[in-house]
């Protein structure tokens, strides 16, 4: 890449904390956020566990001080919480002072409300305002309005790789001078729709997910939102901004194998990592830590592991961990929250543990970091893969 892109702010809400500080404390102390479902009605409550945020929509609305007549759904509410923190942490006071954009991402958008009133909107005139709030684009428009942002606003939806692609597109817009700064990331709330979708695919665990374990049984879904702020060198210099980290590489490829399953040789993942390394100009040996996609499904972890070995070589894969045992798989938001975790790892010189790991997979010799480990980390590689064959890799570097 011709130049690295500065990251000047970050914000997050997940099942392990309502802000960056709380998330860091949970990660450090090994406190996961997987629990029984309490916040929405489903017959699976009590049997399937998720990484649920224990705030109701009403409580989130209160936190955000939204007017009573708002039509903001849960995905956007979570997004607003995280975006607000990101903007504050970047010390942005006038959001439209520079050419500013918002590239968000979501897979589920306003589904949490749609599924409640889908058949009965006719009987609830006061709920009909949510009809407009179903589409993914609307969620980003709502977040932008909340921030008072007037500029380029877009939404990426490439399933579980969405937020990585939002970050990537944001970087390209800065690099080409289309924008001076951009808030990038993603948000997804839990819903009956998604829960049942993943359940029918039989890739949900009946207990706690165990990434890269030989006996892994599937994922826990989670809900979260996270955004980071990217700014051009000019703005950073002019405003004397503190840089938290740099985005130094990105790669996007398609597995072109199957609508939902990953290929046996991890071709898409391999290509995404290869391209991200190439763009960063870094030697593969400089990667100190990989925040793997690591969903704990039999298919993903095998395919991703093989791709990592293909890139780095047998016995040469950098230390890695999946943080999904903490948060669950937060779908479109996953790469956003893992971007925040990657930055925290560099800032605090620590690798967060891959919880619940017991037995090495028989297919290869890969063991994740299972205890909190102190280590100077200069470059983190973060993977995110999704349905539709969408594979993305980001590389973050120390400021």
């Amino acid at each position: 890449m011709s130049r690295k892109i500065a990251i000047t702010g970050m914000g997050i809400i997940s099942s392990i904390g309502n802000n960056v500080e709380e998330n860091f404390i949970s990660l450090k102390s090994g406190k996961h956020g997987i629990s029984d479902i309490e916040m929405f009605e489903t017959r699976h409550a009590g049997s399937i566990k998720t990484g649920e945020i224990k705030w109701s929509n009403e409580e989130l609305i209160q936190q955000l001080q939204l007017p009573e007549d708002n039509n903001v759904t849960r995905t956007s509410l979570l997004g607003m919480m995280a975006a607000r923190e990101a903007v504050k942490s970047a010390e942005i006071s006038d959001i439209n002072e520079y050419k500013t954009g918002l590239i968000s991402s979501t897979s589920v958008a306003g589904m949490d409300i749609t599924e409640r009133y889908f058949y009965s909107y006719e009987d609830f005139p006061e709920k009909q305002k949510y009809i407009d709030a179903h589409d993914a684009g609307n969620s980003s428009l709502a977040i932008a309005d909340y921030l008072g942002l007037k500029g380029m606003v877009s939404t990426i939806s490439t399933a579980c790789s969405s937020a990585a692609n939002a970050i990537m597109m944001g970087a390209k817009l800065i690099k080409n001078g289309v924008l001076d700064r951009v808030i990038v990331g993603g948000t997804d709330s839990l819903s009956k729709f998604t829960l049942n979708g993943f359940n029918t695919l039989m890739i949900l665990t009946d207990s706690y997910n165990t990434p890269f374990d030989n006996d892994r049984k599937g994922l826990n879904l989670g809900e979260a939102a996270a955004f980071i702020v990217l700014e051009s060198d000019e703005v950073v210099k002019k405003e004397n901004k503190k840089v938290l980290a740099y985005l130094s590489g990105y790669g996007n490829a398609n597995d072109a194998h199957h609508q939902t399953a990953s290929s046996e040789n991890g071709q898409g993942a391999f290509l995404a990592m290869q391209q991200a390394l190439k763009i960063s100009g870094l030697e593969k040996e400089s990667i100190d830590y990989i925040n793997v996609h690591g969903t704990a499904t039999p298919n993903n972890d095998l395919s991703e592991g093989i791709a990592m070995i293909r890139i780095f070589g047998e016995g040469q894969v950098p230390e890695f961990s999946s943080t999904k045992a903490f948060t669950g798989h937060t779908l479109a938001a996953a790469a956003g929250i893992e971007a925040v975790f990657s930055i925290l790892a560099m800032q605090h010189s620590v690798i967060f543990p891959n919880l619940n790991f017991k037995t090495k997979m028989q297919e290869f010799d890969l063991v994740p970091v299972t205890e909190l480990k102190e280590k100077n980390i200069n470059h983190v590689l973060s993977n995110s893969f999704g349905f539709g064959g969408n594979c993305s890799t980001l590389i973050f570097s120390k400021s």
Partner: protein
Amino acid sequence: MSAVYINSASCISVQDTLKENFLLDLKADQSVQILKAVDPNYKEFIPPAMIRRMSKTVKMSSVASSYALKEAGIEKPDAIIVGTGMGCSQDSEKFLKNVIDNKEEFLTPTFFIQSTHNTVAGQIALGIQCHAYNFTYVNTSSSLEFSFLDAKLQIIDGEAENILVGAADEQTGRTMDLYRLHHIIKKEEDLPADYLHSETDGVIWGEGASFFVLGKDKTENSYAKVRDIQIINRLDLEEAPSFITDFLTRNDLKHEDIDAVILGFSGDATSDAYYTKGMDAFKNSALLYYKHLSGEFNTASGFSTFMACHILKEQQIPDIMMINSEKKTEVKNILLYNHLAGNDHSLMLLERA
């Protein structure tokens, strides 16, 4: 900044846009609430077993994208970028109905698998075994414009030479019911719609898929040059003229340099005011509208971009699109202005290739 060319254009819409000389047969039906896209004979393009499983947006996109690739003579593009507003809403709706009707039991995953917004881009990649960059934008009204912008940046940066770019949206039964209920769709009693001087809110809803190959090099088949794109989430009504003027200025153009302006008049009185305000300063340009031919939907600008391509290539403006009577001997620059109900305003500047 190097140029980017539109080297092929294909569209499935409410008009029979797949056939030759479709410009002669454009028809407007302004008296119905919903307009359906003309189905091609899918059997000619897709194996019958697959047709049954595919939703309309996947089918339309599959045909339109293969037309576009074929016309451009490209087998595997260097990137696939798709825009949509509602994604795969037919399969989403089917799965949601199953979840509710069966009380979360006895479900099969097929509809869920095909419900994700990126299904179209993923299916195209799978179909042609393309491992390249693959992206899906999902905006209320600017997905195609973002897809074009992304493609343009990649070509200028030298990351790609030929990119398949498209946009698609389909209708679904329940969503259309809800749009009627919420008066996003015009009330029956307000039909037929007056697209240019509407006094009522609401629109006639359409659907369609448009695909293009954007390339680094001009070819014999080139339709247009993509000069510039501007997108903004919100605009005050009074800002519409300066939004346009600033865009023209940064491209060293004046209003009189624009030969044709294609405006997104939808019959929604409140939000059409942006177009009325915006077109005021164009005294010598042909003013055009198109949503009476395509219907309004999240990616309706795919249809207008496709029409702009044909106008530039064939140097002929269909009468049915004219708002004023300004005749042009040559059409060199076309400006497209679109938004949906005041959300996601976009400007796109195309030039004769």
